[in-house]
């Protein structure tokens, strides 16, 4: 099955060392998710595509106990197979706080300030039967186990 990003310009893919993509304006402001243009002092400016750091620290986290309303949710699970997941903000040094799903589903195993790293993980299936991939953050060194 072909693996495709859940949306274009979200992260570098395919890649052996993928990174999240942000936009950067001439005044150095980072915009995630990337978009083409942004107002800078009254003028619409094309943003430069830049890669964000792959490592950071967990700024906060929480849990999602029930399956989110679908649509818009498009996970491969259904009401029976849904597994509660966690989300958090990861502070990427000198860049941004990024909201993301976390690969560790047990909030007891997460703590604010712990070191996290970017993972690109399988998520669902698109209309053409490709496997969609999303970004997530994992505790550094955690086994690769999907978006949880």
């Amino acid at each position: 099955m072909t693996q495709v990003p859940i949306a274009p310009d979200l992260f570098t893919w395919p890649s052996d060392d993928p990174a999240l993509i942000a936009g950067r304006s001439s005044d150095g402001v980072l915009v995630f998710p990337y978009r083409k243009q942004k107002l800078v002092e009254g003028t619409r400016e094309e943003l430069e595509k830049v890669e964000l750091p792959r490592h950071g620290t967990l700024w906060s986290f929480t849990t999602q106990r029930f399956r989110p309303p679908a649509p818009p949710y498009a996970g491969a699970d259904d009401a029976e197979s849904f597994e509660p997941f966690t989300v958090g903000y990861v502070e990427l040094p000198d860049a941004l706080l990024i909201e993301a799903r976390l690969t560790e589903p047990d909030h007891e195993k997460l703590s604010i300030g712990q070191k996290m790293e970017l993972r690109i993980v399988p998520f669902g299936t698109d209309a053409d039967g490709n496997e969609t991939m999303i970004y997530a953050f994992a505790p550094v060194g955690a086994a690769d186990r999907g978006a949880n």
Partner: protein
Amino acid sequence: MSTPDVAIIGTGLHPFGRYEGKSALQMGEDAVIEALADAGVAWEQVQALWASSMEVTNPEAILGLLGRTGIPARATFTGCASGGTVLAQAANAIRMGDADITVAVGMDKHPRGAFSAHPSVAGLPDWYGEAGLFLTTHFFGLKANRYLHDHGISHETLARVAAKATRNGERTPHAWRRKPLSVEEIMASPVLNYPLRQYMYCNPDEGGAAVVLCRADQAHRYTDTPLYLRASTLFSGRDGAFDLLSPSLPLAAQPSPTVFASKAAFEQAGLGPSDVDVIQLQDTDAGSEIIHMAENGFCADGDQERLLADGETEIGGSLPINTDGGLIANGEPVGASGLRQVYELANQLRGRCGERQVSDARVGYAQLYGSPGTAAVTIVST
């Protein structure tokens, strides 16, 4: 204190809850009729109306129920801050000289369960919803978790907020949830968005609330107990504020829009936090109430642990907060919720609250916060 130009002369409420077979507009109608009776004003005397609703596209259609008098009737919606917005607009019509008597009304009837919408209506990409991130409840859990961590606040303090809300609900005849829950029962409820548990959350429901306003110099024609609108402010979030549904945030943090709305409101009113006798805060969840105590200037970050343990936010305490049980005990019909706060403040300031009455209440404060990062503050006084 500043000289007021607008008075509140009547308030009405269709109790919040679940009402099968009754429409949002009908609940709004009931609230307006109660507010008019309270003010001693006939519907035909009302010269302008502002209405808000999340579920009803044209809530100003309430005129079809109240009477098609031909007055300017407008609708506006600013999420959970809508009550503050329609109140401000109804007041501004009086200040502008457009009308002497106006009505602000809110109404809603939400389906059961979590709010569901397409991310594009919030300016967010489709994948954000597909990935399961388009849920406002994540924000409440994420903000509470970080706040508790930074300021040394225990999970039991979250439970104390919810327990207080249910105790105040028990003392409020029109509240939706009137069964008091103990800290232990709340701590035993399932974790929804860590650290927030099921009984620490409000639920969407149904209801209506209305306020009748008039020129301050004419208020005594209608009532012996007018209230005066001392401040109404609304601020959107600025870059760096941690607001709902943010895929990323800059490292340089800015305060919440609530902080700006609160400071501006106290300035408008010529009052400070210590002048306030009754407080209504947006308690979508117990964490929000704790955070909003500090964001509105009623305590320093971290003091909540002691204030809750000492019962200072109870009806008999130094900072009575959400005396009618707030959103946790009443639920949130989004379009009506802000005016429910004003209804409770008016009843407190007019000494009508029976066993939940705050003694000698003269100044009331109400704060709203919601999507997409909008905060409103209203201050009223005798």
